[in-house]
């Protein structure tokens, strides 16, 4: 116990003296949270579109005004189609709405064609689909209003769906993204930083000196990992506090829940970092491996930006061994729903299992001798 305490103390002092630790544990979380709160948003608004109004009728003007009136679009009025097409090729506008010259006639007949033509820039499919949907929604609403004032029903059955977004009624994407950002930060601390720090001890030869003392492997490993566990928890709490107090993410569960699930995530994250450092024993290679096996999967396969269920089967299977996926799921539940143990316990179980796997591998690869150096 005394040896362990000494090792932990040493590691903590080192950790706190290194400016790059602070960079990763404090500066990076703040940058990431700021980005997710303000820059990276899946909520679509202010998209530039061109409106070509070929008719001067009162109705055409009213329809055109309906487009200017929504928060979705920033309207760029263009005199003719050609001009608008050019803008779209150039990328200045993301979509075009054409109000035809015979709008008034088209409103009374179904044979003359649609009352608005919408062209959307398919180069960015997600945005394109959104523009298509929103622009046709505007048209439909305008039509319903202008016709509806005359005859309330009868043209066709209008099915109205009433959406209710549970846990996130305002549909703010930052609420769902910030837990993902926390997972990224924790992966950086748990996997990347740990891998590099342990690899550095091999490079500098301090590992050799420590190994020649009576301290045993378990003490050395725990002494190395516990401070980073602490650092990870600290970063989580910083992130959590920023998220709830500054970025308006509700915390419907408890801090206790956050601490439990974060502790569970740190087990596989640290295990992976340790394994990487034991396999590589050199900082550059450790960083590369941590980047490709830790950071990028956490970004891509954790379900925080991209829906896992939409991926092909092999990738879905692959995502099963990405611990960040369970962490993101658990954190989102704690923030937005509450401490739902039905959800959290399986997640914790998976994370611990993945962690155990890494530790067993690390254990088998680390012998106390320098033979495999």
């Amino acid at each position, binding site marked *: 116990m005394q040896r362990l305490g000494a090792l932990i103390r040493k590691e903590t002092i080192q950790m706190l003296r290194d400016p790059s630790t602070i960079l990763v544990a404090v500066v990076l979380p703040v940058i990431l949270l700021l980005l997710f709160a303000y820059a990276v948003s899946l909520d679509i608004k*202010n998209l530039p579109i061109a409106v070509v109004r070929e008719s001067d009728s009162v109705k055409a003007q009213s329809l055109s005004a309906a487009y200017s009136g929504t928060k979705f679009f920033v309207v760029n009025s263009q005199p003719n189609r050609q001009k608008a097409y050019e803008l779209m090729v150039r990328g200045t506008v993301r979509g075009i709405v054409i109000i035809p010259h015979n709008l008034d006639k088209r409103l009374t007949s179904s044979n003359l064609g649609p009352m608005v033509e919408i062209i959307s820039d398919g180069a*960015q499919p997600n945005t394109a689909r959104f523009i298509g949907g929103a622009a046709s929604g505007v048209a439909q609403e305008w039509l319903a209003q202008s016709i509806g004032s005359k005859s309330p029903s009868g043209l066709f059955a209008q099915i109205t769906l009433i959406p209710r977004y549970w846990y996130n009624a305002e549909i703010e994407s930052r609420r769902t993204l910030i837990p993902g950002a926390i997972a990224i930060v924790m992966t950086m601390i748990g996997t990347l930083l740990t891998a590099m720090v342990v690899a550095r001890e091999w490079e500098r030869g301090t590992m050799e000196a420590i190994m020649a003392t009576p301290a045993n492997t378990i003490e050395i490993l725990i002494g190395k990992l516990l401070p980073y566990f602490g650092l990870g928890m600290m970063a989580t709490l910083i992130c959590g506090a920023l998220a709830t107090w500054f970025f308006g993410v509700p915390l419907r569960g408890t801090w206790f829940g956050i601490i439990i699930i974060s502790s569970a995530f740190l087990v596989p994250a640290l295990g992976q970092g340790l394994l990487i450092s034991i396999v590589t024993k050199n900082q550059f290679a450790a960083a590369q491996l941590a980047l490709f096996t830790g950071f990028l999967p956490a970004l891509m396969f954790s379900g925080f930006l991209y829906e896992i269920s939409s991926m092909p089967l092999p990738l879905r299977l692959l995502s099963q061994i990405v611990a960040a996926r369970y962490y993101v799921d658990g954190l989102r539940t704690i923030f937005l729903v509450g401490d739902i143990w039905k959800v959290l316990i399986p997640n914790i179980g998976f994370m611990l299992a993945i962690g155990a796997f890494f530790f067993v591998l690390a254990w088998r690869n680390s012998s106390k001798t320098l033979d495999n150096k």
Partner: protein
Amino acid sequence: MAKSKISPLTRLINFLFSPILRAQIVKEILCTLRDPRSRMSLIVPPILQLVLFSFAVTLDVSNVNIGVLDMDGGRQAQEFLTTLNEAKFVGKLYVVHSQKELENQIETGKTIASINIPQGFSAKIGNREPAIAQVLIDGRRANSGQIVYSYIQAIASNLGASTAMPQGPQPSSIRYWFNPALIYQWFTVPSLAAVLVTMTALGITSMSIARERELGTFDQLLVSPANYVEIIIAKTMPALIIAPLMGLMMIFAAIFMFGVPFNGNFPLLVLSIYVHIFAVVGIGLIVSAVSQTQQQAILGMFTIAVPMMLMSGFSTPTENMPQFMQYIAEAIPNKHTLLILQGSFLKGQGFADIFRNLWPLLVTGFIGLSAATIIVRNRLQ
């Protein structure tokens, strides 16, 4: 006269091909590529990732589970559910018998959305009256939820429209230009290629000065007749050689493996790739020049690369960022390169349009390299 005319050119050639610069360029390339293991670790993971992530990175939604509580049971409600069940975005349709069960499924994440069809739904549709149904969506997956909701809505309005009488007006027609079927990979693959090439170039350059500092070879270099400009020029070379080649490989993969149509000017795209790497290298060398150790360089690179990727418009549109962030984004090479790639692949943009996104890259590159040169020079205590 003739002599004075030639001399600047000769000087340029002598400068470009001076043995001093040549030796350094060869050194940089060998240090990056000679070791087969580092060669593999440089080239294989990005290619592998292009393939892997091309399938993963989609904001499209498919294969999600939907819960249904049908309190109506009429023909139209059945028709609605059948269409839903056949839709490609739905994985499983869970039919339940109580509101509680419906809610429970959402809470545990079993379903992403649930539809509650009230009594009288079919009757109202039969009478062409407005009908109402409730959709519960899991706000934890707000983005996918919104997309799922839009799909359900489309099915519902089609169902409604199918009851229309022949003489009503058609509200709108939608065409998707450049990508009529909205195939997601037409967007993802070229953009991912840019992300991966950027990461590779940043990785190579951000380590290069820091590594020489740590190993002590940098002093050796400073003592030699090589000057700072030459040192920096040589340092840009490995990335300028490897990254564009990788970019080309990925572009061929995009065209021939993923079937992304290429409508633009190919030489122009190649030029753009070089300019892009030039800009990235400028940023990477600043990181390297500032860092004292490799660890600082790696962590510094990360701190820059992550926001760079997030603000580039790859995962979210740049237009909805606050204005000041949009100004910052102008300095991010990927922001412009994504537009160039889309312009070249799908839109068939010409030089004038490409150039609008090309010159900011040149500016970033020149500022970056000049700053790196100045930092290296001033580091001398």
